[in-house]
């Protein structure tokens, strides 16, 4: 009798749960075509307080910008159909595309754009994220619904990069955000669906888990090819790689080099590299000082000698770093502006190009008068050893891998390095105070290199009280500053590129920042789930041109074939097992309690 009861219970449990979970996610024919991609962490959807690239990628996909990048990274019309400048370049007139509607059917006009810009210019909280982009703006006005007039203090060549897809200022609907200005600082913009305009509509977000976006069928340029975009957050790279390998996500990027090698041989996975938009290197304290020239910090004065820094540049083997640290997935560093942006491409002339040449490094130091005493060289004037501190980021695996190489290479030319691993904030603290000799450094940039170039100007040095500084390496050269000012007003791209080239040359020769390598962006995409994600043609080394997520997301095409979801069945089986175990436990206990009677 008991056995029959157990059998009936088990059968009922199995049937019931299988029925309940038979039709679980993704198994029906009408399920939306979905692109699931791994993303970095998202903390807010408020475009006025957002700092992270992962957030701005979403924000400029759900809110319009004046211009967008085309597939070759050129600024082309988006919300602004066309634009003209006054002869003195101080007034820009944008013609705003008419007939577009926010997702709540209110019309999008130039007034929304003017309101957004003015809010950032007048409200401190709104300026948190992008206020620095509008420092050169005098006024923004919308005399009518289709005209936006921007007046600047000085000619601004990079005006179009102020509001462009992927970064910078997204234009928000005035009628929605007017009431949010009061509590703007804490407003997360988390009532879904978010009222905006773009190829996507933000329809949901689970903190620290995923964001869901639906394709906007009314997008002026045609809706995206997939119906739904899910951006899932993985806290560990290994989990993202496992998810890609098992087909739970369709694309992932910024994959670590080790994972990339695994994915190259995985089934149905296309692993590829994009040209680097970052560089990693070391910065050398050329003599930290304030804006007025007052020396500050405990930097070793020997490093102010440009010959010492030049010798250090010759002592480094960049090829080895690319091979050993990046597993070959990058290029040796040379130019200050990363190679992803071909319009700013620059190479040192053959006679000034630095190679791995310890003999030359030794020769330079010998000629400069630093004689060897034992293993290390000594400064002839102070008799102090050429011993310097190298600060590294304690939590950065690459930094920790590179550091021992530097110690060895510098020893070979008679320079002593002491490693000082620090936290990110600790390192920045010391940097700002000038208490450093050498520090590991790395920067990236978008297609407009203005900010990257600005951190090497004298204007970013700190004030005499130590505050107000934003310098990268305390580099200060009046000639560099002059060129920087020039390029801000050069509207011809080739002209601007030439000036920026001269600036890169100055930095290259100064060696306040020595480039190690440019690490390629590593991507992996499931070929059985999505096509058309990758764009462009590979270069000689097989790396693809860098591309904005805006374009990749829009043109990604779902690949046919139902996604098999056995998950539901497994849930059902799991629950059936639990029920059976519970039933078993129940009957065992009952039997046990009556054992005395049976005895």
């Amino acid at each position: 009798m008991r056995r029959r009861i157990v059998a009936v219970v088990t059968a009922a449990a199995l049937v019931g749960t299988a029925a309940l979970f038979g039709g679980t996610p993704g198994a029906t024919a009408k399920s939306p075509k979905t692109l699931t991609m791994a993303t970095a962490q998202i903390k807010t959807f408020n475009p006025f307080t957002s700092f992270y690239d992962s957030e701005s990628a979403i924000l400029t996909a759900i809110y319009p910008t004046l211009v967008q990048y085309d597939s070759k990274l050129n600024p082309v019309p988006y919300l602004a159909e066309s634009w003209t400048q006054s002869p003195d370049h101080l007034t820009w007139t944008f013609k705003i595309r008419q007939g577009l509607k926010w997702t709540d059917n209110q019309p999008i006009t130039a007034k929304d754009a003017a309101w957004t810009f003015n809010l950032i210019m007048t409200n401190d909280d709104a300026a948190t994220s992008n206020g620095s982009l509008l420092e050169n703006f005098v006024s923004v006005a919308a005399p009518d619904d289709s005209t936006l007039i921007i007046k600047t203090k000085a000619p601004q060549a990079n005006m179009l990069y102020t509001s462009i897809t992927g970064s910078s200022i997204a234009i928000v609907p005035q009628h929605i955000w007017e009431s949010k200005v009061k509590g703007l600082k804490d407003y997360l913009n988390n009532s879904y669906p978010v009222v905006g305009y773009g190829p996507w509509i933000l329809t949901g977000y689970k903190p620290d888990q995923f964001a869901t976006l639906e394709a906007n069928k009314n997008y002026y340029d045609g809706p995206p090819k997939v119906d739904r975009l899910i951006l899932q957050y993985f806290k560990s790279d290994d989990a993202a790689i496992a998810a890609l390998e098992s087909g739970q996500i369709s694309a992932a990027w910024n994959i670590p080099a080790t994972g990339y090698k695994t994915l190259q041989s995985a089934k149905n996975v296309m692993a590829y590299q994009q040209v680097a938009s970052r560089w990693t290197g070391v910065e050398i304290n050329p003599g930290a000082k304030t804006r007025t020239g007052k020396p500050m910090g405990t930097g070793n004065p020997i490093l102010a000698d440009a010959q010492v820094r030049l010798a250090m540049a010759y002592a480094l083997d960049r090829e080895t770093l690319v091979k050993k640290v990046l597993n070959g997935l990058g290029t040796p560093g040379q130019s200050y502006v990363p190679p992803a942006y071909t319009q700013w491409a620059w190479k040192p002339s053959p006679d000034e190009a630095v190679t791995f040449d310890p003999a030359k490094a030794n020769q330079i130091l010998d000629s400069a008068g630093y004689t060897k005493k034992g293993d290390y060289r000594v400064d002839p004037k102070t008799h102090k050893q050429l011993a310097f501190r190298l600060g590294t980021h304690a939590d950065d695996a690459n930094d920790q891998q590179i550091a021992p190489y530097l110690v060895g290479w510098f020893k070979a030319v008679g320079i002593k390095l002491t490693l000082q691993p620090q936290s990110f904030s600790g390192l920045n603290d010391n940097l700002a105070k000038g208490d450093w000799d050498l520090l590991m450094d790395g920067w990236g940039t978008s297609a407009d290199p203005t900010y990257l170039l600005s951190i090497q100007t004298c204007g970013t040095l700190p004030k005499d009280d130590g505050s107000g500084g934003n310098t990268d390496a305390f580099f200060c050269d009046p000639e560099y500053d002059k060129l920087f000012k020039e390029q801000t007003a050069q509207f011809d791209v080739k002209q601007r590129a030439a000036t920026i080239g001269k600036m890169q040359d100055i930095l290259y020769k100064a060696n306040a920042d020595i480039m190690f390598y440019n690490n390629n962006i590593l991507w992996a995409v499931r070929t059985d789930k999505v096509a058309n994600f990758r764009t462009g043609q590979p270069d000689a080394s097989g790396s693809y041109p860098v591309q904005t997520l805006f374009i990749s997301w829009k043109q990604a095409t779902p690949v046919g074939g139902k996604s098999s979801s056995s998950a539901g069945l497994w849930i059902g089986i799991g629950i059936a097992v639990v029920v059976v175990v519970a039933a078993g436990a129940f009957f065992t206990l009952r039997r046990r309690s009556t054992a005395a009677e049976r005895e």
Partner: protein
Amino acid sequence: MADPVAAGLAGEVADAVASPAGPRWYRSGFWPYLASKLTGAVISFLVMLVIGFTIFNVMPADPVSALTRSHPTSPAQMAALRKQLGVDLPVWHRFLNFVGHTLTGNLGDSWQYHQSVSSLIADRLWPTVLLIGSSTVISVVLGLWLGIRSGWRHGSVFDRLSSGISLTLWSVPTFWLGLILLVLFTVGAGPIPSGLFPAAGMSTPGYQGSWLGQVGDTAHHLVLPCLTLVLVIFAQYVTIMRSSIIDELGSPYLLTARAKGLRDDEVRRRHAVPNALLPSVTVIFLQLGTLLAGAITVETVYSWPGLGFLTFQALQIPDLPLLEGTFVVLSGSVIVMNLLADLLYRVLDPRVRAQ
């Protein structure tokens, strides 16, 4: 400083002698016991607040440069941000804010999330409680059961197997085990098919099922993290229970019980186990208190949206309000669990009641 417990005892004895006919609730000694334990807990909490604040403010903290690292920000902007976040306030001012905030429950605003710390913690509390709760229940049941069986027949093959396996699993790093299980059951290996379990999160993105279906979905996501935690911590309960049972084995009262005619099972269940349970209770509560923070590696591997990872995130900037807030919650939970263990002891063990 006078021992509050001894003082309570002395008071009790004096009262019992002086007025044997006093009200029962006072003579029972529970309230002095509770009062003394509560006082101890409150003092610990306040000391913890001071220590926590000191440690976090000794760390170099310029959150603004960390926050704006990858974003074009002018020095003027950074100065404005510093002012907005209150980074430049003097230390004593921040300490007063901190204490005031903690006592009123308003833990300040996170510098990187732009929302209140209490709402951040509230959002992530349930996932952590779910994970910790389920893994604790399963590992307690499993560990105690194995411990009882092993201890009762210590030296047997079962004993050796269970002790060996549990200790091996305990010495395995949680992170590593988590990664192995993740790869094994997500990517699949050998006979195990691919895609058995999800690789991240607490729910499937875009899932539109019924309420019951959603519970099932969460359960499906919970399996691997819970399994990882269970495998790593159940050994503690096995060991503690096993040694307690072995301690009890030679006791005369068990001989009496057997002489009365009770079966072996009943002797074990009704007499040996309750007495052997006490040390395990202590361990369970201690473990619960610390597990809240200890699950961080599991939460990271499985991208489980819980408190542990929030604490780790707070360290990154460093996001001082968030760090202080999570510190208060996590240390507070240890103190509360200790207090509960003390009170439960009084219920479980008549010898404590008689004190």
